[in-house]
């Protein structure tokens, strides 16, 4: 019987089936950042253990590094320098690669890993960060893990894990113009809940997925964790092979053809059986935005905040009321009627070059509405350099956006001066949790195109309706 992509990757990394029902899976690359990585390296050292494959471990400083232009060598979080210094010290001591703040390879871990060829099809990659599933877009076997599990992988080159079930999420047909990868994921999560993928390795497939750029595919897989999935992944095709070619940490020339041959079989067989299947008609999807405090609180732009019929079946829970209260939105009111004070473009979800290009198309020759604080933070230093070489920085700056150094930045608040309590932000990030972008800050998730259009309009509008305005 034909195998699924996940089963193929699993089988090729299976070291041992353990008596207790877990499996021992070989890990090919380990990525670390200052927020959760240093503590893993410290933990290892405290137990007098060393890193088993130090060449396969890469560290970067992305989470709490300052992103202001010409950034000083400090954290955006008061006192956060201890995390940066701890990673420097522990990376040096462990003999692993570190892309420091001033390194041209620095950037958000999930942006630089594909960019530099650290993540490749057919590899297994873990990182103590929940968005590691981003890398599944390359046909990579990935898991976000805790620091303790990362410690285990550093020491043994393996992960102890119970095999998840497999799910296929098939986006059939074509997307309507103006609908992008971010909208696909918000649509999926709104329909099937933030735990709809729980227990599954989710493969995204279908014509609408094959048609996506690699950047769009990474956006899909990035938000697999917001769907509750164990991980996300996409089969390898010519676009994948082309994308991963000639990356600095990629495959050596003499091994390229062997690698390509291996990679080309990294697709689910046409009659492979999944434990669950969800089919979505791509043309049903509209540009989406969240109204509440979970990614599942998403609705098509221009529609109204849902009322009681969309509420949870069981009368157990005031989650919806609390979300509405926190967000300052009311049932039956059109989401486009809410005035915004902030716009953020960046993050591992939508901070890649293509995202900046698409936002720049919307912003070109326009100005953000009065009273809107707009910020763009490229996902990596390489992304920033490439964007500047195309003049995108000027487009953002002329439109009234701040143009910053790369990092995770205001995807989450770490204690710096950012958005203010009660501010309403439309954001290209992945989490609209209470307080995620600052105490009392209200986050509406959307695509970079929607963020750009909304920044200009001063309220939440889609790129296409923004044009009509």
């Amino acid at each position, binding site marked *: 019987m034909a195998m699924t992509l996940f089963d193929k990757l699993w089988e090729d990394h299976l070291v041992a089936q353990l008596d207790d029902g877990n499996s021992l899976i070989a890990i090919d690359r380990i990525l670390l950042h200052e927020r959760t990585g240093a503590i893993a390296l410290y933990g290892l050292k405290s137990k007098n253990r060393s890193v088993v494959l130090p060449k396969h471990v890469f560290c970067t400083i992305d989470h709490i590094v300052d992103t202001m232009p010409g950034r000083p060598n400090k954290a955006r979080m008061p006192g956060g320098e201890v995390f940066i210094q701890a990673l420097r010290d522990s990376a040096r001591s462990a003999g692993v690669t570190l892309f420091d703040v001033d390194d041209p390879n620095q950037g958000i871990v999930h942006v630089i890993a594909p960019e530099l060829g650290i993540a490749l099809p057919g590899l297994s990659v873990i990182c103590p960060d929940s968005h590691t599933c981003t890398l599944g877009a390359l046909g990579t076997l990935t898991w976000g893990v805790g620091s303790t599990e990362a410690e285990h992988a550093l020491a043994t*080159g393996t992960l102890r894990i119970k095999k998840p079930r497999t799910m296929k999420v098939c986006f059939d047909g074509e997307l309507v113009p103006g609908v992008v990868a971010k909208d696909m994921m918000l649509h999926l999560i709104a329909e099937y809940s933030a735990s709809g993928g729980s227990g599954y390795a989710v493969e995204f497939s279908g014509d609408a997925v094959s048609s996506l750029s690699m950047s769009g595919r990474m956006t899909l897989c990035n938000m697999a964790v917001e769907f509750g999935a164990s991980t996300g992944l996409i089969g390898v095709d010519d676009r994948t092979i082309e994308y991963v070619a000639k990356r600095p940490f990629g495959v050596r020339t003499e091994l390229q053809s062997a690698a390509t041959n291996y990679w080309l079989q990294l697709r689910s067989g046409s009659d492979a059986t999944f434990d669950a299947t969800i089919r979505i008609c791509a043309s049903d999807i509209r540009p989406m935005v969240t109204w509440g405090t979970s990614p599942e609180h998403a609705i098509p732009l221009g529609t109204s905040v849902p009322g009681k019929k969309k509420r949870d079946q069981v009368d157990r829970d005031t*989650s919806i009321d609390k979300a509405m209260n926190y967000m300052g939105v009311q049932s039956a009111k059109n989401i486009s009627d809410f005035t915004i004070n902030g716009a953020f473009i960046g993050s591992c979800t939508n901070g890649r070059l293509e995202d900046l290009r698409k936002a720049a198309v919307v912003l070109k020759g326009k100005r953000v509405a009065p009273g809107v604080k707009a910020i763009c933070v490229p996902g990596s230093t390489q992304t920033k350099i490439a964007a500047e070489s195309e003049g995108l920085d000027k487009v953002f700056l002329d439109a009234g956006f701040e143009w910053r150094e790369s990092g995770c930045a205001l995807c989450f608040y770490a204690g710096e001066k950012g958005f203010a309590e009660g501010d309403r932000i439309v954001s290209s990030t992945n989490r609209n949790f209470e307080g995620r972008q600052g105490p009392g800050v209200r986050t509406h998730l959307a695509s970079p195109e929607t963020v750009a259009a909304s920044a200009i309009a001063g309220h939440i509008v889609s790129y296409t309706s923004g044009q009509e305005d």
Partner: protein
Amino acid sequence: MTPISTVVGTAVCLLRDNIDTDTIIPSREIKVVSKTGLGPSLFAAWRYLDSEKREPNPEFILNSQKYHDARILIAGENFGCGSSREHAVWALKDYGFDAVIAPSFGRIFYENCVYNGLLPVVLELQAVLGIVKQIETPGISPEVRIDLLRQHVIGPDGIEHAFEISEANKEMLSSGLDHIAVTEKYIDAIDAFREKDREKRPWAYL
């Protein structure tokens, strides 16, 4: 890690769905490279009226006298979703929780619980609601008993509710063993795998 067999104590309910790890411990609260001392930061945004003076919010359930010695947290669907930060588990442990009961959990959070001796109990929603109803009834002692080895939860009414947990996770929690040491028993299998794999996927090695 201290081995767990049973957890008995006061249970407190935070019955919201999708309580994320940012809510369990906001990033701004994580100030030192350490696994300890995070208890005061637990649920900081809900628990205090303001982040500076930390005046307790009287409306937040953990601040009520009835639950001052809570050891078991009962929550809604998808508890611990979001960020992988293990600090969420360290904060719950440091505060004094030994177990969390919920209909479902975020995957990484659940695994972090297992590696840190915080007992995660997946209990079906109806059972959770039944226990919550009893606990919140005035005059009833909010005591819950969880037996890991026999895999059941007993609420104040004495009724047993069975729960599922994998053998591996049960073993990890009940033995308190160091997981790296456990895996090191397989060192020969790992070495043999790598040797074969270097031939099969030479491009995967740097």
